[in-house]
């Protein structure tokens, strides 16, 4: 399929016909490209039933008209791998633990979605004990991976799947693992061995046979 090339500032169409996707911007009721790349037009998905999601803070109904319009976006996907993205609320990110403190784990975000990041962004995961009872933040982390063996270096090589829940503060994104498919996917024991998961909350060291507590991800 021959894709249309867009350069920044190129007119894509009136904003009444499309919804602005990534890589576009609105100026005077028209949609313009804001990055270099190819134009993608995604037809709106059929509305999935909202399911059992709680909608506590719902104030007004979604403007249904805009939901029916196709989304137009511009991206360099498939053309250049050097596309930097920012972690966003709703993405799944892969992180590496860099520092464990009693109340939080500091992580480095390595992958956002399927994009490997060039720059290193910092994130923070907090355990539920310190929950601030704000939306989505209560269940940050069921079990902090290295709570009991903070001193060991083993905690630092844990790999996480998690989800940003907020843009965070000046230094870090706030992340959560509050979902079945999120959590530790690669763990190292106190002895320094790579462990395998045995339950939703435990990893086992194959050499020593000891179990260690982790919030285990179930990606499949």
């Amino acid at each position: 399929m021959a894709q249309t090339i867009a350069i920044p500032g190129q007119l894509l169409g009136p904003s009444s016909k499309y919804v602005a996707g990534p890589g576009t911007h609105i100026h005077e009721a028209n949609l313009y490209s804001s990055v270099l790349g190819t134009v993608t037009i995604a037809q709106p998905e059929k509305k999935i039933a909202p399911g059992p999601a709680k909608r506590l803070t719902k104030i007004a109904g979604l403007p249904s008209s805009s939901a029916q319009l196709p989304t137009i976006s511009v991206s360099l996907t498939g053309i250049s791998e050097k596309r930097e993205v920012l972690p966003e609320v709703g993405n799944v990110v892969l992180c590496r633990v860099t520092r464990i403190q009693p109340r939080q784990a500091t992580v480095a975000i390595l992958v956002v979605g399927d994009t490997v990041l060039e720059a290193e962004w910092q994130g923070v995961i907090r355990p539920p004990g310190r929950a601030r009872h704000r939306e989505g933040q209560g269940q940050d982390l069921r079990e902090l991976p290295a709570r009991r063996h903070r001193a060991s270096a083993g905690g630092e090589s844990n790999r996480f799947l998690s989800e940003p829940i907020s843009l965070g503060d000046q230094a870090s994104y706030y992340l959560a693992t509050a979902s079945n498919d999120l959590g530790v996917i690669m763990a190292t024991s106190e002895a320094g061995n790579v462990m395998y998961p045995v339950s939703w909350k435990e990893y086992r060291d194959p050499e020593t046979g000891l179990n260690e507590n982790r919030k285990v991800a179930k990606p499949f």
Partner: protein
Amino acid sequence: MADRRRINGPVGATTPPIFDKPAGPAAAKTRDAIRKIFLKTGITPSASGSAYLELENPNPQRPGNTSLKLSCTVHGPRSLPRSAPFSPHIILTTHVKYAPFATRQRRGYLRDSSERDLGVHLETALRGAIIADRWPKSGVDIIVTVVEGDQDRDSPRAKKDDEGWDMMNVLSGCITVASAAIADAGIDCVDTVAGGVAALVCKDDKTAPTIVMDPVVAEHGSILAACCVAYLPTRDEITNMWFKGRLPGADMMVYDKLMEKSLVACRCANRVIVQELNETVKKGQGIS
């Protein structure tokens, strides 16, 4: 300020010995266009985005005649240092640095005030073009290296009173090359900003001054006023304007004409950017 950590070359302008009669100022071609621009993106693999710009040398036969050569690298968006406060926008940092050999007068390794000044102009020009709120909490460094600074080496006139008119040309080149490099880096922009210069020049005191685009300083007897503009063509907006000089009287007519001419120069430069960016995408499509 002397840089004591390095062994520096001779201070001051070096004048090559000329035994022949100098050719005199280059004949100012009556061209109603800017010099040809060579622009290429993606020249620095380690940077997020990069571009190289070179202006056509109008008189390649003349000894010591140079044109403008600029290289721009964009690093980022990347996370801000720990100490930086929270920012809902991308923090733009611009560095313009002359290579030590870029001009008649040797430049040190530390940025001097004119380089910093150019950096601020460039920042203003780019800040209007990028969509800063797309990249919260992040920073981007834009580094422009002036490899050749568009200073004619053997123009006696320019030596006598170096009024820094060539800085305008350098700035417009910096804007154009940085715009291409930012697009290459994938940072959101409202438009491809391009730089252009127009100047009010006169050959000598007898003739009437005329307005030219993209003035080659050595070609003209004297420059009365010049204007460098950063322009967004599709939005028809100006993000940076730098005018200096002396206009006869409080006449807005000349000023407006000068501005219009520099906008024409911007549009010309923008066409080069658009073409090069299209090619960048096509090349990427061919590979994948």
